[in-house]
């Protein structure tokens, strides 16, 4: 297998995730797109680990998975708090800090 096929797959997932973060207006869907981005990074880490014949890539991918779990927990808590205060998770309506 070629290293580039994994890297290009990860690039596709990353860019789809970036599109989702920019184009979605529901807070939970934005968090889902962030998960796509983190998974693309994990594919890259493990592909480079396999390429360099080391397990360090796998270890870092496991760390990324743990951080992603923490991120989703806190992110969803924030989204829930926004919902409780504004009765909506529409991110285009959250513009209180706009001058």
């Amino acid at each position, binding site marked *: 297998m070629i290293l580039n096929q994994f890297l290009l797959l990860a690039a596709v997932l990353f860019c789809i995730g970036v599109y989702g973060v920019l184009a979605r207006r529901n807070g939970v869907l934005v968090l889902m797109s962030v998960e796509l981005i983190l998974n693309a990074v994990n594919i890259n880490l*493990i592909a480079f680990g*396999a390429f360099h014949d080391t397990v360090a890539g796998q270890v870092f991918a496991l760390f990324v998975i743990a951080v992603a779990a923490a991120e*989703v927990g806190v992110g969803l808590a924030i989204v829930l708090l926004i919902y409780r205060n504004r009765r909506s998770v529409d991110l285009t309506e959250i513009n209180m800090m706009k001058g």
Partner: protein
Amino acid sequence: MIAQNLIFGILSVVMGLAALRVVTTQNVVHAALYLVVVLGGVAGIFILLAAEFAAITQVLVYIGAIVVLFLFGLMLTKAPLGRTANLDNDQKLLAAVVALMLFGVLAWSQIDAFGRLVVEPERVGTTAMVGDSIFLQYLVPFEVISVLLLAALVGAVVIARKD
């Protein structure tokens, strides 16, 4: 090697289409279910790269925990369960342009830098080597991660608590 490439092709096509549906579908629950397809495909890619422990962890943590958390989030924010027309904001076209340009830069630089380098995953270490590596070389980051998880747990409870 041909079988591996065939499986990679099937997995990548399925993952690409499912990922596109995650960011374009107008039904929030379908987005979460397409996300399951993408995450399962990533686990399959990990197995192709001989990273079986990462693949199992991916299934357990992502599909088992994070997707369930997403479904709870959708439920608690009373997301509309059927089709809704306004899940995308008005900068959709600009976002597509940005994503396509980013992909162009990434793909060009990766092809330019790594060409046709071959990866041979059958020589990579096993789960035992991953465990050794975590508990010897990466012990301090591992402990920091556990503290981070505790902090995130407490923080999520504090933020989302009704008071």
